[in-house]
Structure formats: C-alpha cells, structure tokens
C-alpha cells in the first residue's frame, strides 16, 4: 500500500511538495521554539535540583571594599540558624565576583551568568550531590594550593584548559579540572580552595579596618531536612541581620510558572503554523478525492468496503504528514546546529536543545494532525455511492 501511496504522491509532485512544505514549515516552528523551551526547562530543572534541599543565604553587608564586619555577623547568624527546627547543617561559603569587565578574558558572555569565584569548605562537598561533575582533569584536593577547577563556559571564554594558569585579583591559580557543562552557575564558576577564597575576599581590606573576622565567608548554605518548610525557614533567616535568603521551592515554583507561560505562548504560535499546514492537507486530499472519484468507484466495485477506502486516504494523509515532519525536523536540526554554533562563538550559550522527546513528539503530532486533517476528505471518499462514482466520471 505504501508503494501505491508514494506513487500517487509522486504523480502530483508539485502539489505534494507544497503540502509537505506547509507541514514542514509548521514543524520547523514547533521544533525550533520547542528546542528553546527544552533548553529553558533543562536550565531551570538543573538549577532546581541543585538547590532543592538547600536554602542559600547571602550576606547583604559584604563587599570587597572592607565591610568585613558583615562576615562576623554571618558567623553569628550561622550559629543561630543551626538551632532552627528542620535545619540539618549550616555551611559557610565564600563567593566573590571574578570581576572582569564584560567581554574581557574570562567573561562568559552577555547571555551567560556572571563569572564567580567560589570557595567551599570540605563540609560543603558532602551536600553537593547534585552539583555538576568535573569533566576533565580532577577535582580539588584538601592539599591543593593555588589550584582552581573552572566551569566550561569560563574555560572557553578565558581560553583556559587543564594545566593553564589563570589570574584572580592578580594571583595566579593553576587549573586542575574543568566542570561539565550544566547550564547552571557552575558553567561560569572558578572554584578555588576555601582558604584561598577567604584570602581573596580579604585581600583588598583597607588598613583602617581594626580587626579581621575569624572565619570570613559571604554566604551560608543552609541544608534542610527533605520535608522541612523551606518557606518558613527562609522567612526566619531573613529576620536575622545582614542575610537574604530565598525559599528554593518558591523560586522553583516561580520558574515553573514563568516557563509554563513561555511554553504556552511559543507552542501556541508554533501550533498555529502547523494547523495552517494541516489545512493544506485537507485541501490536497479533497482535490485527490475529487480527482480519483472513478478510482473509488472501481475499488468499491471490485470489493472495497468503506473502511478500505477510508484507510487508503488516511494513510496517504499520514504519509504526507510524515514526509513533512521529516523534512521539518531535518531543517530544524540544521537551523539549531547553525544557531547554537554561532552562539557558541559569541556568547557560549547553546540556546536550543533538540531532544529526542521533542523530535519524536513533533513527528507523532504531525502525523496525527495529518490523519485528523485527512479524515474529512477520506470520509467523503468512503461514503461515495459506487454507481454515482462510476457514472460521474465515466
């Protein structure tokens, strides 16, 4: 049957090409915007996974001009938060901006997150189970001095590799590992030993500051029990002086809400394009039924039932849909590959993610939509009175 269908389609090549092209354009729209949505979902999903059982509390008082007293208040806050119900641990971290101007060496680009220098104490490592892994080289060791593990985007932007040397505030660090691309903050991260991150933090403290903090840090990672009320805990943390915390579940919900609205808008626009393509199938199949009225009469005369005729025209519509979907998916893959390659040059961000579920879903959707579009003309073909069909075109 497929051979006959393809022969029918070939026998009216221009009309078939136009109809297939209509579906292909719709599929290109669906796949390209769908790839954008897939990428966003990846980013949001990974960020949420990274933070699901952690409340991240940033010191609001610290900056590198010498307000180091905020570091002392952070340590006091950490001791208080440890006593909150539902809190398993509080780990101090150092996060300081890498501090290059936009477009400078190491700037991962205007689309990416800002480059940050991280210092995690050994205790933090225990809780970073969802953190992206080191893809090449190795992770930091407790014995490391002046060593750094850098994110994939930072590595690309700074043209650094394992074995390279990078400068942070004039200090040289030896790159020992590159972190896998994860579409999280870690893509633009420079992770250095905790003690050296603390040293970097205090490096520019002016001599007027009377006393340096005992255990300087800029943020707290509050590890909570899986079923803890993170919203309540975040509110309690925010009542403490000099800290700003966000409920990770609320953040995830906000992201989900924004991405679902975004998804609805772009999928809606793409669907309109695809439905327009489906109308062209209705048109093509209606013409095909009219042209083949006598053939339908003959088929019925030699024993075809309504179901046989219906199936033949529906299969033809489905084949048009499948060809359009294949053409659209190939075109989308080329567009996405090109745009991603261009973005890799300028901004180090792959905007589109062409996932197997998007490709499979788009293909199945196009075929189903084509079948639905082909049903109306196919039903009219199936219901043709055979004597009328034979007479009308005799």
């Amino acid at each position, binding site marked *: 049957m497929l051979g*006959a269908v393809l022969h029918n389609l070939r026998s009216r090549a221009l009309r078939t090409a136009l109809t297939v092209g209509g579906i292909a354009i719709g599929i290109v729209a669906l796949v390209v915007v769908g790839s954008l949505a897939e990428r966003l979902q990846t980013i949001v999903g990974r960020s949420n996974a990274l933070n699901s059982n952690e409340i991240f509390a940033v010191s609001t008082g610290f900056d590198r001009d010498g307000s180091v007293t905020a570091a002392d208040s952070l340590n006091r806050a950490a001791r208080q938060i440890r006593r909150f119900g539902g809190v398993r641990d509080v780990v101090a971290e150092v996060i300081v901006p890498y501090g290059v101007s936009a477009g400078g060496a190491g700037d991962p680009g205007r689309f990416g997150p800002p480059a940050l220098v991280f210092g995690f104490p050994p205790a933090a490592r225990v809780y970073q189970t969802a953190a992206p892994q080191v893809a090449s080289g190795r992770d930091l060791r407790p014995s490391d001095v002046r060593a750094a593990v850098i994110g994939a985007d930072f590595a690309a932007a700074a043209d650094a590799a394992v074995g390279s040397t990078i400068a942070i505030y004039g200090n040289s660090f030896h790159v020992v590992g590159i972190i896998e691309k994860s579409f999280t903050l870690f893509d633009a991260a420079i992770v250095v030993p905790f003690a050296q991150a603390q040293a970097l933090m205090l490096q520019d403290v002016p001599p007027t500051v009377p006393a340096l903090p005992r255990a300087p840090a800029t943020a707290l990672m509050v590890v909570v029990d899986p079923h803890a009320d993170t919203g309540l805990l975040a509110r309690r943390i925010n009542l403490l002086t000099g800290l700003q915390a966000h409920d990770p579940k609320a953040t995830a919900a906000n992201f989900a809400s924004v991405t679902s609205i975004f998804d609805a808008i772009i999928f809606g626009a793409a669907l309109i394009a695809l439905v327009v393509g489906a109308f062209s199938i209705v048109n093509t199949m209606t013409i095909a039924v009219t042209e083949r009225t006598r053939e339908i009469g003959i088929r019925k005369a*030699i*024993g075809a039932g309504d179901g046989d005729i219906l199936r033949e025209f529906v299969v033809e519509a489905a084949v048009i849909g499948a060809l359009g979907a294949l053409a659209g998916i190939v075109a989308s893959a080329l567009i996405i590959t090109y745009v991603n390659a261009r973005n890799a040059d300028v901004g180090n961000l792959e905007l589109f993610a062409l996932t197997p579920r998007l490709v499979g879903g788009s293909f199945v959707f196009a075929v189903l939509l084509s079948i639905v579009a082909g049903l109306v003309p196919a039903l009219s073909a199936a219901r043709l009175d055979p004597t009328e069909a034979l007479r009308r075109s005799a």
Partner: protein
Amino acid sequence: MNFDRLSAPDAAPNENVVAIRNLVKVHAAGSATQVRALAGISLDIARGAHVAVVGESGSGKTTLMHLLGALDRPTSGSVVVDGVDIGRASRAELKALRAARIGFVFQGFNLIASLDALENVMLPARYARVPADRARERARRLLADVGLADRMHHRPAQLSGGQQQRVAIARALVNEPALVLADEPTGELDRRSSETVLGLLEGIQRADGHTLVVVTHSEAVWKRAQRVIRIADGMLVA
C-alpha cells in the same frame, strides 16, 4: 460472511446464478428529475452461461449491470445473485459479495494507476481478506494465463490497451467469482486486441465454468454469446 464460504458455495451446478423478478429501478426517485431506468424485468441466468446484454444508450443495461454487480439496490422487485438478495442484504454482505463472488471488467480498462499489474490483480483478493501469499500466487498464475507473465510489475501507463484489459480480466477472476460482469470490454480496443480479450473471456467461461455477462453495443461481441438479452426503455425485448 467469510471468503472461504463464498468461494465454495453449496450450490448445485445447474442452479441459476442470477434470478431477477419484477425488477424496477428508478433513479432520483421522488425528485423532479427521476428516471425509470428499469421497468419490471424478470429473468434468470444459469450458472456457467455466456450472456450478452444489448441495447441502445439509456436503455437501462448499465443500471442492470450495477444491480447484478451489487453496486445498487432495486427500487422494487428482487435481484438474487449467487443466493444473495441484493435488496435485502446488509452493506457488509454486499461488499463481501462484490469482493468474492463477482468479477468486474470495465470499459476503458480502469486499472488503478498507482498499482502495478500484479497489485491490480491482487486488489480484489485483498478486499476479500485473502491471505497475501495466496492472493499473490493466484494473481501470478492468472497474469501468466492471460499472457502477461513478463509484465507483472508494469504499471497501467506502461501497458497497451489490450494488455490493460487482460490485466482487468485477471483481476476479475482472482477470487474465482461465480459471475463475471463485463461492460463493453472491447469498447476501446482495436480489432486484434478485441479478439484476444473476447477469446480469453470465452475460454475462462468454458474452461472454469464462470458465468459471463457481457454488456455491449457491439454485434461482433453479442453474436458470440450463448444467449442475448435485449433491453429497450428499461424492459426486456422479445
């Protein structure tokens, strides 16, 4: 109604394959344009007979062929084909009758352009739900019988008119029908091809005992039939 039962009817050899009583067919009945195509015909056709139906254009012979072919239902009276009352049978029964017990040969060949010769011949078997292997084997044998063993994979456009009509004859016979209906089978053929096609139809009728009903204008065609049925204005002419 399954194919095996249809292909092996419990019928006595001398039974009439067609029994028509007081057949009336009115097209567009009840409308201002209604046409009384058949006006009370009664006739029997014996199994294995070779019958020609002749008449002028508009005499009602095509309507009669559509009724014999289970494509249409009578307005009144009855048409019984191979034991099935066309007026009372369900749509599924009529479909099964057409698929398995009736073979059509049309004027103008009317092969399906998108299928090759073998696929065209197999088509009625497919509609009769005959297993594909069996259908293919029968179709190959029939195409060989009509002299087209080397044209099985040609599409209709690649065959001459005479060859197309021979494919159409093979198609009509693939389900070993009780009744073969041929509507002007030589209408678009030259004399030589006409002779070949008529020879084939008659050979099949004699050798395999198919009942052959040929609707024709052509004296050369109807003169070869065992029995001639003349129709004028929807009625049989003595």
